[in-house]
């Protein structure tokens, strides 16, 4: 447990800094993704969804793409297309919601 928590501490202190946020002080559409992945690694699905709702579908589409390229599903390309379009819509809605509720500066 100690090793696990220290690993997450290390991870929390070694995230890539968003250049947009560093310059303008405003979240970019991708901000929250790394924190969300860490929350997901801890097993905290709700926190991951709150931080960045597109993380779970994005990780799903990455894994599904690798499996699809290996085993060649019949409707694999169709599923990837629909999921990517959904991710784009989720990112846009999330960003507009963040602007609307003044969450961009934390």
């Amino acid at each position, binding site marked *: 447990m100690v090793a696990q928590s220290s690993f997450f501490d290390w991870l929390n202190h070694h995230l890539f800094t968003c250049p947009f946020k560093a310059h303008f002080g405003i979240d970019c559409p991708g901000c929250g993704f790394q924190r969300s992945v860490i929350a997901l690694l801890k097993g905290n699905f709700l926190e991951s969804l709150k931080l960045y709702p597109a993380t779970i579908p*994005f990780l799903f589409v990455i894994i599904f793409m690798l499996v699809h390229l290996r085993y060649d599903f019949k409707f694999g390309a169709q599923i*990837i*297309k629909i999921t990517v379009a959904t991710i784009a819509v989720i990112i846009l809605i999330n960003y507009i919601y963040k602007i609307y509720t003044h969450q961009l500066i934390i």
Partner: protein
Amino acid sequence: MSEEQENPQENQPINLNKSETPAGNTGNTGFATPPPFQQAPPFGQFGGGMGHQNLPNATAALVLGIIAIPACCFYGIFGLIFGIIAWILGAGDMKKYELNPTFYTESSYKNAKAGKICGMIATILSLVFIVLVILVIMGAITHPAAYDEFFKGIH
């Protein structure tokens, strides 16, 4: 011993091919000239060339198209580059498939199409973000008070 064992294994498929081709010709007596590419498949390694070759850039287009979606957060530049590359690769492979549909596999065509569409989505997303960046910079320069009010919620 090993050479003697390998030799009949190598000879058997050749004999089978020789026996198959006359049988195929006698069976197709109704057709005067069968298409030549059916008898001489260019990719014998996979057991016959008809539609067994994947499009060259389908996988690359698909991977780039998906990677371009999260790459839009670095000012949108990487997302734009990856998205446009995926779009071009996917569209080029779709053209290749439409020129010669029997030569390539249909699944790789679907992958190329998906890569093209993912690239288009990523390009549009990145463009929206770039427009937003420009608007934010313009707003911060021209109307600092309104900028603070809009984004920080200071009233």
